[in-house]
């Protein structure tokens, strides 16, 4: 038994198609992949919101002017 159904290369390659493992799980993979993608946005938004809130808390006019002058 193998994860892509091939146990040897004693085949004619013209008869072979997909060779990735766990064929038949493509739809599940896509659903999980989409969840991963959405999860990134959710987590990234949280991280960024936290950083911006911290930046607001730490605001210092003198430091800001220095940064503006630095360009």
């Amino acid at each position: 038994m193998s994860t892509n159904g091939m146990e040897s290369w004693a085949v004619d390659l013209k008869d072979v198609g997909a060779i990735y493992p766990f064929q038949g799980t493509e739809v599940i993979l896509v659903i999980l992949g989409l969840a991963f993608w959405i999860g990134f946005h959710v987590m990234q938004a949280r991280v960024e919101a936290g950083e911006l809130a911290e930046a607001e808390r730490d605001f210092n006019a003198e430091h800001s002017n220095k940064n503006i002058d630095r360009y």
Partner: protein
Amino acid sequence: MGSNIDALTTVFTEFYYWVTVVMMFLIHVGFCMYEVGASRRRNHMHTLMKNTMLIPLVTITFFFFGWWIYWAFPNGPGFIGGLEDGSANAPWSPTMATNLSDRITGVFWAAFLLFSWTAASIVSGSVIERIRSTAFWIHAVLIGSVFWIIDASWGWHYAGWMVKVLGYHDAYASGVIHAIAGGYALGVLVVLGPRLGKFAADGTPRDIPPHNPWLVTIGLFLIYTGFWGFYAACNVPIISPEVIDGQITGVTWTATNIYLAPTTLGAITFNFLMSLSGGLLVAYIVSKGDAFWTYSGGLAGIITASAGNDLYHPIQAMFIAGFGTFCAYKLHYWVERKFKIDDAVGAVAVHGYAGFIGVCIAGFMLWGQPSSPYEGYAAINPLGQFIGAVIMFGVLGFLPAFIISKIMAAKGMLRIPEKAELQGLDHHSELAYQAAIDDVRAAERELAANQK
């Protein structure tokens, strides 16, 4: 070349490998930028030269004996047979020169050579700012022209004993390049010790930020670019079943991986990009958007998925990459805190841990699949992959580096003196630079004073 189709195939293959070599040069450009960016200003030129000079040293030694090792050692020797006849790849062989009857050896040698540079360069970054060049260049030759090419002969050769006996599968070198180089770097670091000031008196690690994060990230971008060439160079671009001479029947020509088992450039293009993306996304989140670790995570992602990227589905490659990147990041800081290891660029994590994990994951994902088109080889399996990862990271990576570094340390040739480290390794060249400027200025002022 018996016919026009043979001639075209040969010349196409020659050109294909030649292009990969040129692309892979970018890996080294990237490593140089990355290391210089990570080092502090007082060590720039030394850091650059340390990495640059591994190029000629590894090149000539790889010509003299590295390439011969690859062809002579697939049986161990001593594990499943004796030395193979590597005479066609010995430095005195007529095929290791301009030869109209052999157009492939030169470009194939060069493709492997560029992998050798990479192996040595991975070690280079982790030891910056405190290793003697003398010691590093000896290590560079050993990892670049001896140890990695032994592991390639064992586990990255169509007849290597690890492939035959263990069913070892590592198509784009998670273990063969990255785990061994990461393990080697760790072996040196354990003996070399941290940079001065890296750890507080109570053992708390301090961050030593790169002096130029922008240069570091562009360096990593260039490494990605060169990595494309590396992936292409790991394939045989076109070959017929009769030339493979294995079990494949019919007349359909194909691209193959290094084991001569079929794959496609399309597959590795999908998987390279999806694993890069998986690594970048996870690294961004886990590092809270840190640019250095996000870029390094992209690399760690590709490295984790590389062992099976000839066969994975792209979404599988993405998830495997993300998992490996997460583990590499966490392991880096855990090892740093626990064992006081100062890996200046995270090379042990990005290459070593990610590579090790990637080899192991491939054992589960590809379980039962043929490791080779030849009869009698073990199938890919988790135990074989785990043993393979231990051989790469531990036996051929960490262990020799640790022993050799111990010898170097005992001879006082491993680490620079403390005063030199504090003063900076560019001290002498900076003095000469300033003296030259002062001299020219004085001469020009004198000329200006004499003008009417």
